[in-house]
């Protein structure tokens, strides 16, 4: 049997979950034995080249591109896992969810301490090439069907490791108390 194929992505996240994935330390050598990676920042494959078994999604959806990528993952992965608080509930980016979009944009591009002098014409970026932001940050499972959830900010390396091993081997996942954290 060929090795299961894993894809990963970071949507509206900080790459902290990916860092935590790398935090499995020397087990990464075992991981390479266990799985192959397809589309992922880890191997820098930009587009799916084949159907994958497991997709790990970091981050929630804050813009139109996130939606596109997430739907692409759903299409190309048999199993999708929401990795971390942002994917699961929007996380810190979702703290803008009760602030009107216009106010958010103006704070970011017009009034913020780093932009207020640098943007004298008061331009809100609006290039067709730029993804457009959504009315709020959405948890991934409010866009596509998500199969499993690994909470944490980031999820602990042990949690990610246990989950991957369980997914690959089909064994029951170990969930000791210490690995489930929401922060």
């Amino acid at each position: 049997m060929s090795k299961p194929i894993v894809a990963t992505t970071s949507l509206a996240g900080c790459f902290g979950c990916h860092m935590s994935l790398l935090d499995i330390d020397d087990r990464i050598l075992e991981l390479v034995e266990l799985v192959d990676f397809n589309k992922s920042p880890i191997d820098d494959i930009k587009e799916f080249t084949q159907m994958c078994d497991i997709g790990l999604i970091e981050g929630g959806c804050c813009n139109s591109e996130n939606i596109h990528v997430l739907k692409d993952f759903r299409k190309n992965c048999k199993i999708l896992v929401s990795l971390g608080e942002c994917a699961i509930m929007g996380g810190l980016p979702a703290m803008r969810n009760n602030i009107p979009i216009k106010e958010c944009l103006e704070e970011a591009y017009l009034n913020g301490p780093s932009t207020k002098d640098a943007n004298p014409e008061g331009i809100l970026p609006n290039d067709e090439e730029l993804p457009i932001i959504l009315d709020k940050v959405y948890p991934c499972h409010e866009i596509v069907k998500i199969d499993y959830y690994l909470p944490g900010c980031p999820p602990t390396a042990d949690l990610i490791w246990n989950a991957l091993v369980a997914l690959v081997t089909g064994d029951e996942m170990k969930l000791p108390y210490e690995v489930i954290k929401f922060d």
Partner: protein
Amino acid sequence: MSSQVQSIVDKFGNDATRLMDIFIDISKDKGHVGEEDIAEIADQLNISRVDVEQTLSFYHFFSKEPRGKYNIYLNNSVVAEFMGREEVADAVEKATGTQFGSVSEDGLFGLYDTSCIGMNDQEPAAIINGVVFPKITTYRVRELIKSFRAGKTVTEMVNSFGGGQNQSALIKSMVTNNLNRRGAVIFSDHTAGDSFIKLGSMKPKEVIEEVKNSNIRGRGGAGFPTGLKWEFCTRAGNKERYLLCNADEGEPGTFKDRVILTEIPHLLFEGMVIAGYAIGAKEGILYLRLEYEYLQNHLETILDDFRKKGWLGKNVAGIDGFNYDIRIQFGAGAYVCGEETALIESCEGKRGEPRNRPPFPVSVGYLDKPTVVNNVETLCSVVKIIQNGGEWYKSMGTKETSGTKLLSISGDVRYPGVFEIEWGMTIREMLEMAGAIDPKAVQVGGPSGRLIGENEFDRTICYEDLPTGGAMIIIGQNRSILDVIKNFTEFFIEESCGSCAPCRYLTVILRNRLQKIIDGKGVAKDLEYLAHWGKQMKMANRCGLGQTAANPILSGLENFIQDFEAKIEKGKDFDTKFDLDKAIQESSRAVGRFPQA
């Protein structure tokens, strides 16, 4: 310092348990109870401002912010919707230039959605500055708003009188009684005070025995044996006892108490005297919903008449040492106050949050004293039981459910109104009696009851089979069952006191999931979820409101599953309501980009 507020607080003895009355009086003067009033009340009662505000903010008819000169409280019960509420609401918004939930810019009109105001037999109906306007049409809306703009008062806009006592000088209301069927108990002929002759020869214990013998059970819906309740109360050690009459009929679709209070309030007060005598009460309190404020003068006059006749006051009805009076305590728009412990809290000037039980009110009730809370209909029945005996009463009804029941029938029927029936009638007979028009479903007992379909129309109305507080909403074939269920669920969301976590928010979750199905975005799993989550409500919550809040959904799923399934997306196991085009609208506007097709 405004001495006005001060004198009102003084009038009620600087007593924090009279906060409801204080708010009502201040609201009458000013239209609202503002920040300064709150501070003044707090100082004078020596409690904190947040304590004053927490009671104030609980009730629909109180406000901290100024409301309009004319405040239109338009009923949003499901029958109001059947009868064209939406059209009327649109007309009101258009004519006043403001939206429901707000006050017009000129401060003239305040518009408020309002849970059932007890006029389901004459919808759409609204309360405007205390006056009930039934059977509103768009024509009437334009007329009213135009006249109000021209400075007319609400009483000047009363253009007809309902029948019976509604025409009396003390009521002068447009409300009609629609008393479609008189029975042998409540609405049989009665001369006020007749039962007192017999009462004088009975010991309190004998009164209780007679009531027990009649097997009458509480008419509010829960059906606790009345005689037993009284007995429990007399067993409580404390001698300072209270009788509370629950006239807060808030269950959407019920309006029987309105007709009693209009036509035969003397019978109710007589019953309150009997009950007071039986339990040895110090005082009787009629807890009356503010929606029926228009009956106040009428009721107070009858109470005065009772006092003049010696039926209230010292040595009531000639019984030595029986000193007893009745006062009216108004609520202010909170369905949950129909729950007896919430009602007690409200009487004490607090938020109407149900208490934990035990202890039960019969041992720790109003002001922590032993208290009996009885329904209006129960107390009226008691008068006849004392007069004619428990055996007579038992001769009516079914084996386990004695006597008669008032039904408030509304919805898709030719003759909406109050019907006094003997227990044991089938739903099918009832539909025939009221002239139901092509019935698809009946909501038995209001939203907290059970939504039944044709398959249950042969069930009989009684405790052995289909118990009810009497609200019967007939739903015709052309109605959307899901919309009906949503209306009921939203009623519970609005009326939850917010104390129990599941009642506070699981109701919202349920409503949202139902909306998803109505919007055509539901999948088969959503139906399982509704059933499973709804079931938790029964187990999880403290009071009847929370425990029954999912009943419309649960009995709907049971009896009208095909209506749900028809809305479910076929062949899909996942769908959220996410809509990308909608989600980018706001930011597209903000940056001046328009979504590409």
